[in-house]
């Protein structure tokens, strides 16, 4: 067996793949956080819980109505996103005139409630979710074995990220959004319904978390706490990339996933902390993150 830097290539590429998968989730989740932060100025602490809800929604759809993975990929984000819209309409919107730390505290409260309820109902052990039949199996690339589903997750996440980036940075709707983050009063004066835009943006950001949850369901077990620990890492990713930066979230998300995977090969003890170490170093030199601007 051939080796690279004393590490078997099979292990190296295996971890690289796991890194890319984790990176996909980091990217999609931190993208959602960035979109929400950009327009609402709220750090959505409930993002992890909403990701978990996405996975559970997929599970319920299968159990109760027999709707499989592909339907779940469409329906679950809509359900979770709608739930987000209700939260925004009824509660989050009352906080806009306050210090944005209150938004963080409120969404932290949501996260506790949601996770507590799911844990009460389902315990802490995971529920299995079967992989869609079309994506079962995998192919041999010669140097490694690539499971089809994992390839699909990476490709789909990348497409989703780039699509979102395109809409926000290159279309008319996106330019309204960006203008509203700069000066909501002025944009409103031009006849754009900014409050509705804010609501829909929150819904969209939450829906992104929901999609990530559906994507994750067949890989990890569906578990009430699956979002709780992931979200802390995603926060670090967001801080490194720069809060509110769309491209920053995508690039740092994928990069850090890979970096984490490689650390697992070369120095396993540090794999949990490497992202936080990178964050500390980045912040020493750029307090607003790699792609962030002062607000």
């Amino acid at each position: 067996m051939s080796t690279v830097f004393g590490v078997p290539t099979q292990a190296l590429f295996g971890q690289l793949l796991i890194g890319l998968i984790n990176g996909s989730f980091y990217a999609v989740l931190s993208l959602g956080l960035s979109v929400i932060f950009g327009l609402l100025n709220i750090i959505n602490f409930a993002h992890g819980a909403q990701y978990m809800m996405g996975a559970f929604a997929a599970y319920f759809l299968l159990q109760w109505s027999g709707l499989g993975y592909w339907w779940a990929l469409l329906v679950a984000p809509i359900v979770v996103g709608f739930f987000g819209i209700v939260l925004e309409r009824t509660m989050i919107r009352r906080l806009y005139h306050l210090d944005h730390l209150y938004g963080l505290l409120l969404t932290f409260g949501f996260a506790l409630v949601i996770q507590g309820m799911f844990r009460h109902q389902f315990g802490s052990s995971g529920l299995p979710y079967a992989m869609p039949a079309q994506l079962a199996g995998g192919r041999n690339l010669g140097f490694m074995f690539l499971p089809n589903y994992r390839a699909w997750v990476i490709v789909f996440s990348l497409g989703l990220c780039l699509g979102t980036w395109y809409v926000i940075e290159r279309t008319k709707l996106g330019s309204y959004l960006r203008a509203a983050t700069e000066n909501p009063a002025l944009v409103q004066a031009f006849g754009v319904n900014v409050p509705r835009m804010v609501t829909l943006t929150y819904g969209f950001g939450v829906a992104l978390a929901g999609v990530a949850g559906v994507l994750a369901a067949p890989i990890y077990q569906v578990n009430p706490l699956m979002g709780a620990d992931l979200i802390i890492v995603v926060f670090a990713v967001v801080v490194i990339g720069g809060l509110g930066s769309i491209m920053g979230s995508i690039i740092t998300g994928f990069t850090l996933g890979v970096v984490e995977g490689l650390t697992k090969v070369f120095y396993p003890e540090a794999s949990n902390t490497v992202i936080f170490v990178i964050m500390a170093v980045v912040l020493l030199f750029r307090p607003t993150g790699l792609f962030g601007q002062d607000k």
Partner: protein
Amino acid sequence: MVLLLVVAPFFVYPLFLMKALCFGLFACAFGLLIGYVGLLSFGHAVFLGSAGYISAHTAKVWEWPPELAILAGTVAAAALGVVIGALAIRSKGIYFANITLALAQMVYFFYVQAPFTHGEDGIQAVPRGMFLGVFDLRHTLTMYFVVLAIFLAGFLVIYRVIHSPFGQVLKAIRENEPRAVSLGYAAERYKLLAFVLSGTLAGLAGGTKAIVFQLASLTDVHWTMSGEVVLMTLLGGLGTVFGPVVGAFIMITLEHYLAQLGAWVTVVQGLIFVVCVLTFRRGVVGELAKLIKRPL
């Protein structure tokens, strides 16, 4: 209030009171930072938990007397405060919250893997020992009065700090940082000092807690603990002197009586969070202070 706390152990379960006092001090230390400097540190559990580990380790493995063990924990928390503070203080608002959270998480993973913490088991059966060589802490009441003394000392420090010129500068920075800077105050140095002080006192609480419960575990370093202390302070009242203590007592009481409900505890906590943020942001003591028109 002091009188009440002195007679309390004869009526209420002392271990419960000691837990409330430790968390009261922890919440006060945290409240100093958010209430008077306007910095939301979302990783404050790191000071509580680190001091707990250091105190437990020095008391158990190195067989230090309890006062030295607690002191060691406190000093360690202070040192950690300098490092984390120096890294985090340059950023503001949400960035500050995220950075403290992430740095705390880094330390958490260190404790998960470091051999001396014994991972999931934690450091168990920490001896309480003889306080100053005179007081036998194995007696629950003696332990209680030592904890009470530590709590009052810590509380007095915070009270003095808030009502000192230094505290006034902190408040000025909270209200309008550029203006404080233009008046010639080195705002960053003041903020760092306040951060270290807050971390040190949180460490004092953590070290004491480890000796009282003879245990240091991962729970105290986990980020949910950081969230809990935010809730205590918010519930009691941001920017009030007594608020954090009251909040801590309410929370510990709730946890004590809701313990058999299992996962519902988090739901209740979350609901309190939501209700606090939405309807009474001043907290219990803050609303009271408004009612009697006096700062508390």
